[in-house]
């Protein structure tokens, strides 16, 4: 492919190794949460860096490097998910995301968030709740609340509107909040039982 040689020659090997070292762990964790399978995550990670290397010439000067890499990695993962289940992003599947649960628990949380976050059990509750999200909600939630991209950056990475990002994020957070509400309710009743 003679057209690509310029880009490859321009790509500095050592810089690229440094890019892999810096971003591979974060991207791998992101892909693992998206794909829920270590082998799929590894394949997607390899594809990501291969594509990044081949298109390094296109990158110069554009968006932040991390946004660019996350866009490649996220698209790779979404492509894999679509290949396995072509209806995953169908209109019907997305409509399911709009449905609010019948019940929205309203119990008080007597906790300090940063302290609660330290518990390994809490982390498990969260990871499981993330896995239960539909892929369309999960990807937005991961980019915004876990990886820390802004609404605009997330919209850019996914090629959707900022409004769609906000709505999906709200629906994802609602489900995560529900999982935590149930967890805190359970541990509060355990405590009062223990006190009896």
């Amino acid at each position, binding site marked *: 492919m003679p057209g690509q040689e310029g880009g490859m020659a321009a790509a500095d090997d050592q810089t*690229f190794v440094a890019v*892999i070292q810096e971003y591979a*762990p974060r991207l791998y964790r992101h892909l693992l949460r998206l794909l829920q399978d270590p082998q799929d995550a*590894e394949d997607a990670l390899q594809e990501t860096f291969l594509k990044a290397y081949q298109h390094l010439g296109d990158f110069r000067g554009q968006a932040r490097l991390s946004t660019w890499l996350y866009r490649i990695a996220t698209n790779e993962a979404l492509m894999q998910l679509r290949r396995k289940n072509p209806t995953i992003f169908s209109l019907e599947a997305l409509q399911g995301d709009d449905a609010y649960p019948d019940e929205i628990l*309203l119990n008080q949380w007597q906790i300090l968030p940063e302290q609660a*976050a330290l518990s390994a059990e*809490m982390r498990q509750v969260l990871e499981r709740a993330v896995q239960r999200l539909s892929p369309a909600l999960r990807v937005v939630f991961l980019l915004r609340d*876990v990886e820390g991209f802004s609404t605009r950056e997330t919209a850019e990475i996914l090629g959707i509107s900022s409004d769609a990002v906000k709505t999906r994020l709200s*629906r994802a957070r609602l489900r995560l909040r529900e999982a935590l509400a149930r967890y805190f309710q359970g541990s509060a009743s355990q405590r009062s039982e223990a006190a009896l």
Partner: protein
Amino acid sequence: MSRSMSSACRQWLDPISQYVDGELEEELCEALEAHLQHCPDCRLYLDTLAKTVRIVRASLREVPIELPSDLQERILRRVREAKSK
């Protein structure tokens, strides 16, 4: 003690999420704040949603990451292979 939210309040769920991020447009923001003044359920939802976001940030972002052994090497090998083609 837990209750469930009234259907009338459900219209505020999406705005509350944007409010947590400070991304709710001004007009809606004023309307929401007026509603919050006399709605303990939406105040509780706001409080627990904000706590959810803080817990997620403090928990899931901090998970130590270990790459499978050799993965970095395998990536480099594939990149070099593609380069020499």
